[in-house]
């Protein structure tokens, strides 16, 4: 019953109406329209990447400027469509550099990095112009008038919105949302985060570069200071954040009042423009804590589609054997995992225990691909899984929960589980995914909370949700990192029963735990680690009576 066509149709109507504007408006309103449109195109394309992934990029003007400069350099030599094509290609290539930097950097470091990169590009272009071209400015005498620029920008903005709409409904869109929430979870759900980020940033950059190229003929003369004006990057970010960067239409809702406010104040108070703009802006920021989109959304009725019937999918997995050979991991001078080897037979539950700091979680991180190993190998069902990336490991059927629970807080429980279903080897989508997700939630005991956002869940429910998400991957090996910690007696019993049922379904399970009752009742086998080294391996009863083990846990005097 979702009327998915309402939004796009509305946008289509608006686009058609706007296209008629040049026929009736004078040059001033046309100029205003051009301003609105190019900011709309920039802000929307910016938000395509930065809005969902939360990597705030200040490289906007670098791409915009490259587009404009391309026109400056080859605009009079090639036909216009070809110029745009070349500009787009250059923009995409440039975007790869910025995109790759996201692999190393995050948060404010990425933000300022992107800014520095943008300025570096400006300096390099200037240097090239000064020393090689011997002239800093480029004259653009292309015969394109303001109306044509207006229409091109309108088409571009419409294209950006269309692309954003398509992506939003696709796996890529979901992948980006998950990346924006928690990149570690994304990788462990089978999302190739590198590819997703690069592709999205490339698409976003393509549009930004084209916007610059289309705008260039307006200026007649461009130099690096004009084309690469850093304030533009900041303005685009501000407008998009102000409007609501997490949605498709949000940025435009920020652009329109912003540009109009600037225009109104410029036209009426040229001498006090700065002060008035600042005051008005601050007032609005304080009045609208969730941006313009938040203001709008609160007043719009939300149509929630009725839930799909849950589908119980039996957990029949063939648990895979796991071989760990000579794993080693150091952090600086500290050897966290030192030459650890063990085998796990299919369908076994192995407990991995030891005092705090013994390296248990690190071993799990090495197996799941959350950390790269310094040496050693892990094989799942004969296939080597070391060094192939966490998302591949997840797709091969190795799922895990985390010591500090990681759920996607702004998504509902169903959506959280659906993430596990969308990127695995046999992906599900649409109604089928929803049905299976609900079935999994029922099995875990969360059926009545299926439509609540995960951020509202209690600690134990979040743990259950995380397990459901892990199970959604159809894993053959399950890694549980202190999943039973912090539970009451009755919750503990439920939890143990749940894990036992999983083992009975055939899953291979590695359990890192401190709760000895659970270890004794669940595990076929126990591996004990101390200071990074495996010190015991055998049935729980034997291991827990072992001298070495007792000394590790209780210290020499008490062994």
């Amino acid at each position, binding site marked *: 019953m979702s009327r998915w066509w309402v939004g796009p149709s509305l946008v289509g109507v608006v686009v058609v109406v706007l296209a008629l504007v040049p026929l009736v408006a*004078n*040059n001033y309103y046309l100029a205003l329209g051009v301003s609105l449109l190019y900011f709309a195109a920039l802000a929307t394309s910016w938000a395509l990447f930065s809005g969902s992934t939360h990597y705030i990029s200040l490289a906007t003007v670098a791409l915009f400027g490259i587009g404009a400069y391309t026109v400056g350099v080859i605009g009079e030599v090639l036909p216009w469509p070809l110029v745009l094509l070349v500009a787009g290609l250059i923009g995409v290539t440039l975007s790869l550099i910025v995109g790759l930097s996201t692999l190393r950097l995050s948060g404010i470091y990425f933000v300022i990095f992107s800014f520095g990169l943008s300025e570096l590009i400006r300096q390099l272009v200037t240097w090239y*112009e000064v020393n090689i071209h011997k002239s800093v400015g480029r*004259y653009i005498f292309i015969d394109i008038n303001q109306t044509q620029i207006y229409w091109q920008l309108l088409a571009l903005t419409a294209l950006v919105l269309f692309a954003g709409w398509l992506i939003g409904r696709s796996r890529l869109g979901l992948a980006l949302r998950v990346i924006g929430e928690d990149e570690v979870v994304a990788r462990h759900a089978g999302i190739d985060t590198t590819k997703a980020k690069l592709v999205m940033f490339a698409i976003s950059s393509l549009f930004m570069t084209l916007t610059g190229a289309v705008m260039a003929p*307006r200026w007649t003369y461009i130099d690096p*200071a004009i084309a690469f004006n850093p304030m533009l990057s900041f303005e685009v970010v501000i407008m998009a954040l102000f409007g609501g960067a997490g949605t498709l239409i949000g940025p435009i809702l920020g652009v329109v009042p912003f540009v109009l406010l600037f225009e109104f104040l410029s036209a009426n108070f*040229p001498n006090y423009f700065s002060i008035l703009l600042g005051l008005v802006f601050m007032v609005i920021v304080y009045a609208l804590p969730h941006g313009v989109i938040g203001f709008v959304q609160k007043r719009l009725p939300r149509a929630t589609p009725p839930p799909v019937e849950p589908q119980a999918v039996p957990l029949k997995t063939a648990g895979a054997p796991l071989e760990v050979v000579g794993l080693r991991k150091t952090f600086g001078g500290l050897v966290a995992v030192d030459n650890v080897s063990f085998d796990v037979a299919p369908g076994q539950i192995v407990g991995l225990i030891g005092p705090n700091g013994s390296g248990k979680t690190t071993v799990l991180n090495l197996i799941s691909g959350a950390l790269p190993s310094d040496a050693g190998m892990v094989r799942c069902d004969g296939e080597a899984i070391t060094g192939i990336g966490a998302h591949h490991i997840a797709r091969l059927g190795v799922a895990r929960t985390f010591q500090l629970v990681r759920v996607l807080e702004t998504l509902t429980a169903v959506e959280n589980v659906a993430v596990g279903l969308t990127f695995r080897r046999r992906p599900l989508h649409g109604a089928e995914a929803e049905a299976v997700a609900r079935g999994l939630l029922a099995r875990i005991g969360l059926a009545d909370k299926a439509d609540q956002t995960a951020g509202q869940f209690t600690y134990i429910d979040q743990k259950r949700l995380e397990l459901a998400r892990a199970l959604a991957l159809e894993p053959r090996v399950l890694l549980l990192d202190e999943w039973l910690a912090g539970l009451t007696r009755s919750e503990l019993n439920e939890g143990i029963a749940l894990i036992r049922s999983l083992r009975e379904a055939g899953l291979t399970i590695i359990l890192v735990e401190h709760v000895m009752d659970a270890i004794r009742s669940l595990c076929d086998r126990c591996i004990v680690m101390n200071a990074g080294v495996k010190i015991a391996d055998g049935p729980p009863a034997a291991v827990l009576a072992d001298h070495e083990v007792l000394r590790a846990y209780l210290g020499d005097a008490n062994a």
Partner: protein
Amino acid sequence: MRSGFAKAWTVAALAAAVGLGLAATPAQAQQSIKIGWAISKTGPYVAGAKITLLDAYQLWVKDVNDAGGIMLKSAGKKVPVEVIEYDDRSNSDEMIKALERLINQDKVDFLFPPWGTAFSLASAPVFARAGYPQLLVTATTDRAPEFAKRWPNSFWLLGTATMMADSAVEVFSKLRTEGKIGNTIALIGVADQFGIELSTAARAALKKANFNVVYDKSYPLGTQDMQPILTEAMRSNADVFFAASYPPDTFAIIDQAKVLNYNPKIFFTSVGTAFPVIRARFGANAQGIMGTGGWNADSPSLKAYLKRHVEVHKSEPDRWASPVTYSSLQMLQQAIERVGLDRAAVIKELQTGTFDTVYGKVKLENNQFLGVFQTGQWQDGEYYGIGPTQLAGARKPIDKPAWKQ
């Protein structure tokens, strides 16, 4: 008979008045002459725009209105000037929008140009399409003659980079002939269009005059740390130091050359050298510094201009662009007085007429003004024009004393 004649004449006069009143659309157009401008009142260009353009614009409006306005033949009286101004915030896009607003919404009679070469070029098509005369002062590009042909409504009044370079090299050559300096030049330039064009033109002129450029580098726009580059220039031991610089770097160059005790025989900086702040900040150390621009400080009309500028703005004009800006507006006024508000006619008059301005008599050649001083020097607290040497009031250059620490 007499009353019949009188009646007939009265009726005819009334009819003519009504006819004229209706024909003159709208009648208010002759209550004031609307002048508009979009200029940088905020943003990085604000400082340059104020001293070279805005102050002169405002002074002209005040002078015109104090005298009652501009004489319009069609109105038979002086009509005051009404100003509509906008802030382009040093942003090209805003500037274009503001101009379109002035043309289409405010429907101004005349437009004054924005500041800087880049904005002059960006606004040129807008002026041209709407048929407004564009009196450009802060636009120095060697392609001015070409642009004057492309946009016949544009007037390029401050000269080109080649003119600046040729004039400076003429001065240097004379001094070399007199045995005052040798053959070597250290050349630095800001990496912006102005700096590049001037450096390129200087290089060509110096080569033609058989000077030897021993140090030749550019520095990024906005740099105010000139010590490294000055140290290298010093090490080259050149007789002449030539910097194609902008105001903040000009001031920094002078200050840091002093700290380094860098005393070449000729010390030349570009934009900003003509600003009165040089005297304010450097005092006696300004003596002998050469630069672009300059004026005939002994001219009575310019002396009066200086006096009025200080009275109105409490600050002095720069000795290069400001008087030329004011003169350009006087030219506009006289053109309007001669041919009225028809912009095409005004353009024609500007192209062909001769005008009386504070700068002296001005007649343009191919939409360009060739009578501006291109080289100046601070001598005893005033920045005198010293080149081109054939201009009236050109002074002889003096030796530059060593920096007083």
